[in-house]
């Protein structure tokens, strides 16, 4: 296994298989918290924290506990348990660090629990069988790198989308399209642009 594996993992999960625009996971915070660049970046940081740690813990849990005990069927609920606890922790940390960010993220912090991008990445790390391809612990490194890349991709798209939405505030949008409709169309065009990157890396 060479270092290119990690490069490909970051690059492909960030740009080519972008969680939001190509897999359509995590669209709820994508539309909900992208009105201001500041809160979009705060959300991305929180998601990155949860996503990377959730990928790490869920991978180890799956291969060291669930597989030896032959109880792979509790995969989903045990992953959710991990993610939910991490989100609680993140909520406490954000509340401690920045009351302002806590207010601007509002209910969306708690909703990271149900952010399908995080569960999606954790489950995909298992279904893509990194452990079978690279061995247990190198596979863990690839899984965590993939999660990191996916979180970077989420942050990139959140940042781009929030800057576009800030510009849209001042744009002359037809009355019937103001607000959510024009945002959805923007998101669709962004997804088209990202589709153009498909197939660059296997």
């Amino acid at each position, binding site marked *: 296994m060479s270092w290119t594996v990690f490069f490909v993992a970051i690059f492909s999960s960030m740009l080519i298989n972008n969680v939001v625009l190509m897999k359509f996971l995590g669209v709820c915070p994508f539309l909900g918290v992208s009105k201001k660049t500041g809160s979009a970046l705060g959300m991305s940081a929180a998601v990155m924290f949860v996503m990377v740690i959730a990928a790490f813990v869920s991978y180890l849990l799956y291969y060291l506990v669930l597989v030896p005990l032959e*109880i792979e069927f509790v995969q989903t609920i045990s992953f959710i*348990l*991990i993610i939910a*606890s991490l989100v*609680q922790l993140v909520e406490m940390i954000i509340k401690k660090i920045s009351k302002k960010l806590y207010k601007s993220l509002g209910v969306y912090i708690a909703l990271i629990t149900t952010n399908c991008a995080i569960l999606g990445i954790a489950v995909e790390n298992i279904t893509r069988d990194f452990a079978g391809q690279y061995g247990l612990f190198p596979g863990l490194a690839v899984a965590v790198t993939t999660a990191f890349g996916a979180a970077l991709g989420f942050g990139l798209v959140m940042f781009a989308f929030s800057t576009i939405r800030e510009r849209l505030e001042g744009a002359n949008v037809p009355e019937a399209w103001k607000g959510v409709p024009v945002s959805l169309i923007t998101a669709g065009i962004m997804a088209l642009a990202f589709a153009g990157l498909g197939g660059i890396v296997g």
Partner: protein
Amino acid sequence: MWAVFVLALMGGLLGLGLAYAADLLKVEADPRIEGVRERLPGYDCGACSYPGCSAFAEAIVEGDVKDLKLCKPGNNTHYDAIVDYLNDNRNPDGSKITVKK
């Protein structure tokens, strides 16, 4: 069998971890917020336009609320209790939080 055991163990461990973290990362809040919240009806109905009684209590203590009647399920018993409580517990600089009822 193992599934139940593993999930119970995970739940217990994560719960204990979170309880410890909650204690470690506690944010010092104005104790009067809790005092006001106890004196509200506690339905979390949102009729006051704040997200729940805790948020309403916080807004009262911060002086953002001018009229306690925003709390629709509340009656004079609740309003009087809150006004008395705020009269007894003034701001650190000695000024008083004034709300109508």
